[in-house]
């Protein structure tokens, strides 16, 4: 009887601790928000000529441009991934698959952050074939064709890496998979702002990654459910 009770208690403790570890990482309500801006003259983004692919060209009223240095009003920088690179106290597993679309011969979103081992689904919404060719180094590199109407490609990455993605058929198509070890990340919007939520009290390193320029990091300490502000400035060159 006693042994049984003891066993049940042990089981209960084990289960709850298991739940604590796997379902509830130290949840916090601290946050890091801020803006990413630039100084200097940014390069002009080049218009893309899609005339060789009429089914895509007709989806764009105005010609679209390259996106590697996308700026907004007030010298803000879009498509910068800001993430916790050190001090992370536990990340929750991603609830949803990361979704990557090929639409109008463009990658949407241009920069797709995801977690290690998170499900990644790649869709072809176009009336033309694409080949998805992520140029990974740390992860195995593959290259797959996806004709119109094909089911989504279902995959994942096991190691953190910044992976350029290209389509060899449409050489202007260019994007990034940003595979991170943390669930605490944010991509800057048109206004250059980011917002990393759910941080427990502690000391963190916040890193901002931009596809063309060197990454930048700052230290930040969060106590209680503090909302800290951190801003990043990238020095850009016109070429």
């Amino acid at each position, binding site marked *: 009887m006693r042994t049984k009770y003891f066993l049940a208690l042990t089981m209960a403790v084990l289960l709850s601790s298991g739940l604590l570890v796997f379902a509830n990482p130290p949840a916090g309500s601290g946050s890091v928000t801020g803006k990413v801006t630039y100084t200097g003259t940014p390069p002009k983004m080049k218009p893309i000529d899609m005339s060789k692919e009429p089914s895509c060209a007709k989806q764009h009223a105005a010609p679209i441009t390259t996106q590697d240095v996308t700026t907004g009003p007030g010298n803000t920088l879009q498509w910068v991934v800001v993430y916790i690179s050190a001090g992370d106290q536990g990340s929750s597993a991603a609830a949803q698959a990361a979704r990557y679309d090929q639409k109008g011969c463009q990658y949407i979103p241009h920069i797709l952050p995801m977690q290690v081992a998170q499900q990644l689904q790649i869709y072809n919404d176009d009336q033309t074939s694409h080949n998805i060719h992520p140029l990974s180094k740390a992860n195995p590199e593959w290259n797959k*064709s996806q004709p119109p109407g094909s089911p989504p490609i279902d995959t994942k990455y096991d190691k953190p890496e910044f992976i350029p993605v290209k389509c060899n*058929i449409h050489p202007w198509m260019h994007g990034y998979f940003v595979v991170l070890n943390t669930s605490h990340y944010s991509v800057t919007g048109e206004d250059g702002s980011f917002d990393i939520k759910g941080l427990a009290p502690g000391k963190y390193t916040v890193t901002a990654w931009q596809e063309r320029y060197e990454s930048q990091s700052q230290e930040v300490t969060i106590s209680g459910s503090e909302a800290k502000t951190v801003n990043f400035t990238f020095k850009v060159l016109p070429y």
Partner: protein
Amino acid sequence: MTLKKLAVTFVLGSMALVTVGATSVLAQSHINLPDSNAGTVSVETQQSHIGALTGHATEGKNLYRRYCIGCHGPDGNGEGMNAQWIDPKPRDFTEGIFKCRSTPTGTLPTDEDLFNAITRGFVTTNMPQWRPLTPQQRADLVAFVKVWSPRWTKEKPGTPLNVPPETPVTIESILHGRQTFQRLECWKCHGPQGHGDGPSASTLTDDKGNPIRPYDFSSGSRFMCGVTNQDLYRIFMTGLDGSPMPSFADVVKPDEAWDLVHFLRTLQPLKTQEASLWQTYKAAHGADIKPIGPDAAAGAQ
């Protein structure tokens, strides 16, 4: 200075010159193996298994120094002394990415794949065939190729793609293959007539950014990864990793793949069963055949 002294100086001087020359030759053939913390399999332990043969990297290292170093380089990264004159560039073994595989895209090739590649050479490149080497020597080289990349420690070769028995060569098969060629947009790179001159052909680069040409079927040359219909089936189903050629394994069913093989054979100026069937059909139905390319796609819409 006496004549004797002059002679001694001359002899000593030429000996010094010979020594310098010999040292520089030795320096060129020195192999810089990956350092111990690179996570690679050591040259002492790496092996290859091809049928009943077991290759040893230690033996392969000596063969590499003699036959391969000129192009693939002392660092195994494809930057040997001859590399600057060569296009396409020699393979960089440190990346562990290989074009001719029997395994799915993104996976390592089998030892047999590497053995076949060394044996066959790559007819469209500067890589000759190495049949003059004994099978044992080629197996040793395969083992040595696998000491450069840490991928050989962490990953296993992929499961070879199953190539089902070839379907009969019929005009229906060829016509269906032709539709598949249009549907998969092979012509975007390989051209509507398979001349390697599609609209995207001039923009293609390999993983290192070097320009690369799609295969021109009208050249009639052997394929990069073999000569048989089975080889051709494997080329487009596995893709040529590191190049723009993707894998079609997820989007083409085996029967369709054989149809495509039969059609691709009609693009080559070779006396094949496929070509003669196609010529007969073209003579009878020439006017009804829709051209391949963007116009046909527009017509379909």
